[in-house]
């Protein structure tokens, strides 16, 4: 059975995981949506054409997406020190998590934005919308269900990635599972962590699916 200390430890780990994933998901939204909008609108046929910048942004996004999270975690240490002021703990994990989730989410959001019917953009132009009106009233609202679906996938992926944050001493559920379950052969702890993760992922997926279904039902 789980000892009270272990329950305490799991509770602490859950909070760490939620903090890491929550903050970095927030950053991923704040940075990823503008990035996705930029990738779509700066296209040669987009509403803010800037093909060269578009190619550079595209290459950067691909570059970050090509690096496995565990490598990024280590490679970004100097940057993390600069931003978070430390290379250890929860905040030190948030930086690489956000850096890896942003391009991931931006690409998914980009796909949804590209699927917006060009006829709608044309209609918006014909009624006298300026370009940022088109972003605000057409692209984002019309792509919202797809963006939320993509955000759900991003958060689930981040919950998985956060398990590696133990490598920088950030704690979290994954860290507990490795230290107690793997290194000390404590199967009960391992099972408890897996159960919590399953519940967490299901809850996120359910919330995302519900939101998308509501929007699509209009």
């Amino acid at each position, binding site marked *: 059975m789980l000892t009270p200390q272990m329950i305490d430890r799991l509770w602490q780990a859950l909070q760490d995981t939620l903090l890491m994933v929550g903050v970095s998901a927030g950053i991923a939204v704040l940075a990823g949506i503008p990035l996705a909008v930029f990738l779509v609108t700066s296209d040669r046929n987009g509403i803010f054409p800037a093909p060269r910048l578009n190619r550079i942004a595209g290459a950067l996004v691909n570059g970050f997406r090509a690096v496995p999270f565990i490598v990024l975690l280590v490679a970004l240490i100097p940057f993390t020190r600069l931003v978070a002021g430390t290379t250890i703990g929860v905040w030190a994990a948030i930086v690489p998590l956000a850096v890896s989730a942003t391009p991931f989410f931006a690409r998914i959001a980009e796909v949804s934005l590209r699927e917006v019917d060009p006829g709608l953009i044309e209609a918006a132009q014909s009624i*006298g*919308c300026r370009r940022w009106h088109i972003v605000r009233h057409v692209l984002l*609202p019309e792509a919202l269900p797809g963006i939320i679906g993509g955000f759900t996938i991003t958060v689930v992926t981040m919950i998985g990635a956060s398990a590696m944050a133990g490598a920088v001493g950030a704690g979290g559920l994954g860290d507990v599972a490795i230290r107690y379950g793997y290194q000390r052969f404590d199967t009960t702890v391992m099972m408890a962590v897996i159960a919590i993760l399953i519940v967490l992922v299901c809850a996120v997926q359910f919330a995302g699916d519900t939101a998308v279904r509501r929007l699509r039902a209009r």
Partner: protein
Amino acid sequence: MTGAPAIAGSPARAAATSEARRKGGTVSFEGLGKVYRSSAGEVTALSDISLDIRAGEIFGIIGRSGAGKSSLLRTINRLEQPTSGRVRIDGEDIAGLDESGLVGLRRRIGMIFQHFNLLSAKTVRENVALPLRVAGVARDEIAQRVDQTLALVGLEGKGDTYPSRLSGGQKQRVGIARALVSRPEILLCDEATSALDPETTVSILTLLKDINRRLGLTIVLITHEMSVIREICDRVVVIEKGEIVEEGPVWQVFGTPCHAATQALLQPLENGLPEDLAHRLRDTARPGDETVVELRFAGHRTPDLTGLAAAAGGTVRLLSSQVERIQGHAIGQILVGLGAGARPEALGQIADSARVIGYVDATDD
């Protein structure tokens, strides 16, 4: 408005014309050309189009698919940038407009689309309000004008519905409301009824005509359905391979189509020779045969039945008839069977053209 001194004609009419004049709404194309360049090569969509559209008229653009109709229409609100030539709206060359100028221009020109292009994430009211919202109109005024416009298009009570819950005809009404809410002078319609069933098409056309009369709005309309042109247009231009091949009042173009493209487009409206007659028609007359004469009316005279009987000088039977009134002109053709002793040559004075197309045995009927 009330008490305006009417110098000549009815006061209502004088008010309507002065309103139209005040609002403007003329479009003129001067030597317009459009070439699309892509990796696949160049496509010349329009070449040397010169055309004037008058304020307050309903102007039709017809042509086969790919003729360049949409390209032409879209240069009016500069959704498409011409490669050469000029577009003037009320005399102003629109080529030099920057983004603000263009936004201003587009608020004076409404547009509706074949597939309605409504925002699915916004309610009917929000869709219709959008042109005013982005123009920075005050909230109260937006609410008032949206309600007025929804009433104008017959959508009272539908304001809080999402477009996906509406029928095609209702969606197009929302499109029309959205196009009209900023009180434009010109309304562009790109195949606006092509996705609708015939009954809904008629109701939308009636609405457009009504709007044209009540608001003095210029309507430029593209369609491949000739019946739409016949129903509501004043003048029409026929485009073929990016060039104007025919232009004029609808009755003239329909009554005397000169170009092969126009004739081909008008073909579906003609019933042609009734099948049973076609089977029995002979090239040479036998004794007792009826002479079948086709009389065409191109709008210059109205079929005079007494005159027809007198000119024929014998029995006259109406075999088939398809004469319509377009803009007050009789357009179409009738087939008559003349009994023995009749003089088909004399019928030339009755119709705009008359020709003997063959002979049938009258006793078969």
